[in-house]
């Protein structure tokens, strides 16, 4: 598809937020160009790997059970971010989440009851039938139907501003440079987590040991270009959605199957063979998002979850086979951990385990005493061979350093003014709401809500 020189609306990035923006603007009669960096088969950014969005609702709808009020949603968000959030924008996302759900259903997206193993999310998160790739397929179809011109393998690398107005974007398309002017621009091109150099700037050499769970295309080109043009940012470059995943996952795009759900039933040791955090603090879905940072803080950014044969059936199966040995020293040898230390760690742990009634699906009373740190639930002695280990590394989903926006999704400038025709939605601005921490499905809600706001705002600008 040849690119024109001028469009009504240009949307950079074809994930959930970009699709919501492009469809909304096109349905208001605008000629919209959606520039997606990936080829068609890998389109959709991190949306490919998602599976649900968090929705406030009054009663059962779209596979959701019960209800989830604004107050509950806000309390959850406030808790996980430790108040590090923009309350008006957060409440806007919460209130617009149900209309977003209805809008998605009207555009052909199907939902299903929450997946097995995620029942604790059944009242708050609506699950896409088939996951995020299916959602994005449906939205791409809706976009085509609405007349959006979709341009694949088109990379936006710079943004030109005149005062508070964005004039054009440029980058590479079909092996050549392009420049595209438009009446309005919506930036939905994600964070910078796949940009190894930028990650190293933020994290130092530790970043080399991080795995990127999602798309390899989110290198933060647009984010950096706008920062250079004086856009105001929010958040800290080291803040991100980071979970502990299997260290054997691919560097990029490993997605959901690289998760390890065994941590609460295990002890996790570092390279020195020592424990460093309460593995049984809470249910895994409530804790997995802190473990990325915990492992990132360990030497060489690696951890090892160790279990025995009593608990192998109590968590979701993993895609990579466990490393197996008949004794703890043999396991230490395979993992290349200090044998003596690991042996001592396990023995001390086993001696500290208190009698209790083990319930893998409840916060039970199996715990340790006298250890630093203690394990507060699901603590059983690790004494029944064979023993198993899974290596853990930080898996980065997306970075939180983002463009500061207002409630119209307008990009804010560091001089205190707002851009007149430049909007942002999705992970590129999620940091406005997620200053730190995470609760499942929030990213997709932010992307969809702000995508629709940005698309509507872009469409109603006078040309």
């Amino acid at each position, binding site marked *: 598809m040849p690119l024109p020189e001028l469009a009504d609306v240009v949307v950079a990035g074809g994930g959930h937020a970009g699709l919501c923006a492009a469809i909304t603007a096109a349905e208001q009669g605008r000629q919209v160009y959606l520039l997606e960096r990936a080829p068609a*088969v*890998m389109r959709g950014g991190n949306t*490919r*790997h998602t*599976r649900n969005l968090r929705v406030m609702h009054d009663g059962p709808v779209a596979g959701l059970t019960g209800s989830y009020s604004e107050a509950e949603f806000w309390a959850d968000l406030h808790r996980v971010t430790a108040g590090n959030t923009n309350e008006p924008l957060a409440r806007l996302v919460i209130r617009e989440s149900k209309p977003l759900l209805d809008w998605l259903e009207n555009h052909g997206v*199907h939902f*299903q*009851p929450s*997946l*097995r*193993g995620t029942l604790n999310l059944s009242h708050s998160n609506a*699950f896409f*039938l*088939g*996951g*995020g*790739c*299916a959602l994005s*397929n*449906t939205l*791409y*179809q809706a976009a085509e139907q609405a007349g959006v011109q979709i341009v694949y393998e088109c990379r936006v690398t710079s943004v030109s501003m005149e005062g508070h107005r964005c004039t054009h974007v440029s980058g590479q398309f079909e092996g050549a440079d392009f420049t595209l002017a438009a009446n309005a621009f919506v930036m939905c091109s994600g964070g910078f987590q796949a940009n190894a150099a930028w990650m190293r700037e933020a994290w130092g050499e530790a970043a080399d040991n991080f795995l990127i769970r999602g798309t390899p295309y989110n290198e933060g080109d647009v984010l950096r270009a706008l920062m250079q043009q004086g856009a105001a940012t929010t958040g800290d470059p080291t803040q991100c959605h980071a979970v502990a995943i299997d260290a054997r996952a*691919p560097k990029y*795009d490993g*997605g*959901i*199957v690289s*998760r390890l759900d065994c941590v609460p039933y295990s002890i996790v040791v570092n390279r020195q063979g020592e424990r460093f955090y309460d593995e049984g603090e809470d249910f895994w879905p409530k804790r997995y998002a802190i473990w990325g940072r915990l492992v990132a803080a360990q030497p060489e950014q690696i951890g090892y979850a160790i279990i025995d044969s009593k608990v192998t*059936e109590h968590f*979701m*199966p*993993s*895609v990579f086979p466990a490393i197996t040995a008949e004794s703890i020293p043999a396991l230490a040898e395979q993992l290349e951990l200090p044998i003596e230390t690991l042996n001592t760690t396990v023995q001390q742990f086993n001696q500290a385990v208190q009698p209790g009634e083990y319930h893998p699906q409840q916060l039970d009373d199996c715990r340790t005493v006298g250890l630093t740190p203690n394990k507060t639930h699901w603590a059983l002695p690790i004494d029944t061979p064979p023993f198993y280990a899974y290596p853990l590394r930080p898996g980065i989903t997306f970075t939180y350093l983002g463009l500061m926006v207002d409630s119209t999704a307008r990009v804010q400038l560091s001089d205190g003014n707002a851009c007149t025709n430049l909007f942002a939605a999705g992970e590129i601005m999620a940091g406005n709401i997620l200053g730190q921490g995470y609760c499942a499905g929030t990213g997709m809600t932010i992307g969809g809500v702000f995508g629709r706001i940005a698309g509507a705002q872009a469409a109603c600008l006078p040309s």
Partner: protein
Amino acid sequence: MSAELIASTRATEEAERLLTICNACRYCEGYCPVFPAMTEHRSFDASTVYYLANLCHQCTACYHACQYKPPHQFDVNLPPVFSAIRAQTFAEFVWPAAAAPLFRHNGRFAAIVVTLTVVLLSLAMNLWTAPGTLASSHTGPGAFYAVLPHSWMAGIAGVIVLFGMASVLVSSIRFAHHCGLTRRHLLSPAHWRATITAVATLQYLGGGHGDGCHNEDTHNSNLRRHFHQFTMWGFGLCFLATATAAVYELWLGRLSPFPYFSLPVLFGTSGGVGLVIGTGGLLWLKRRAHPQALPQDASNLDNALLVQLMLVSVSGLLLLALRESSAMPWLLIIHLGLVYGFFVTLPFSKFVHGLYRTLALLRYGPGLLQQP
């Protein structure tokens, strides 16, 4: 190890690899029974793989929804692997076992058998009928038997059909046993209810939401479901036509050809038309199918069955239309030759997928899916 065994081992190993990935993901849980059934397992031996492959309706929703489909390095594409494994199960459990290789070159096998039955029947008729019989019209009750005596027509059919029934029965029992179908499943009304609903409505070609499955791209369409319905119910109606015709002839003393508005002709005509629409539609969809998710090279079995059903129904409808003319004797011979050929190949054709699918669904039962 034979080439076939190596190929089959590879398909099973590939399925195990893919299912290990799928079982850690589970995003497709809402599409069809394959994925909920998968979650009952943590590892995948051959019999589990056979069971899951025969639950698969090849709707390809899982391919299009997959974030790990090629070119992702995990290279996940279940439908063609399951298709290959289904063909393998047909060969592995077929009785007599010596017939297993017939599934490998199924199109060629069907073509040879059908050519033989038509040619042999033509030659025999040319030799044994009175001069002029095949060139003139015959009308009124018993007209067909003026060409081929009833005892011969029914006798040949009887031998072929009885053998076919015995073969598919033994093959199905072997499959059922291997894939873990037990007395508990067979005696459960809930399992039968779920299975009958799933088979009668082809529920799992609905895409998990009822809007249909994928063919050439990610658009949902119930076309495949509807064409398959035409084929399945068309076949059923033709079977019913034959059964009512037998009742008319054996118990009511009425001889074919029957009037246009008699039950056998009404069933047969609607069944034949259904088969033409259904098989034609399915063949048309296959030509347009997505090249990765529904590759053509795996469809030898499908084409052999669809083309045979189409030939049988077209020849039957022609025979009905021209039964008063002098073309009737040759049309009858060709139609009978095609029908005989069809039933000879039936136990060694894609036809058995219906039985294996039903048995797999019976084991699955009501499962965990609530679907439209």
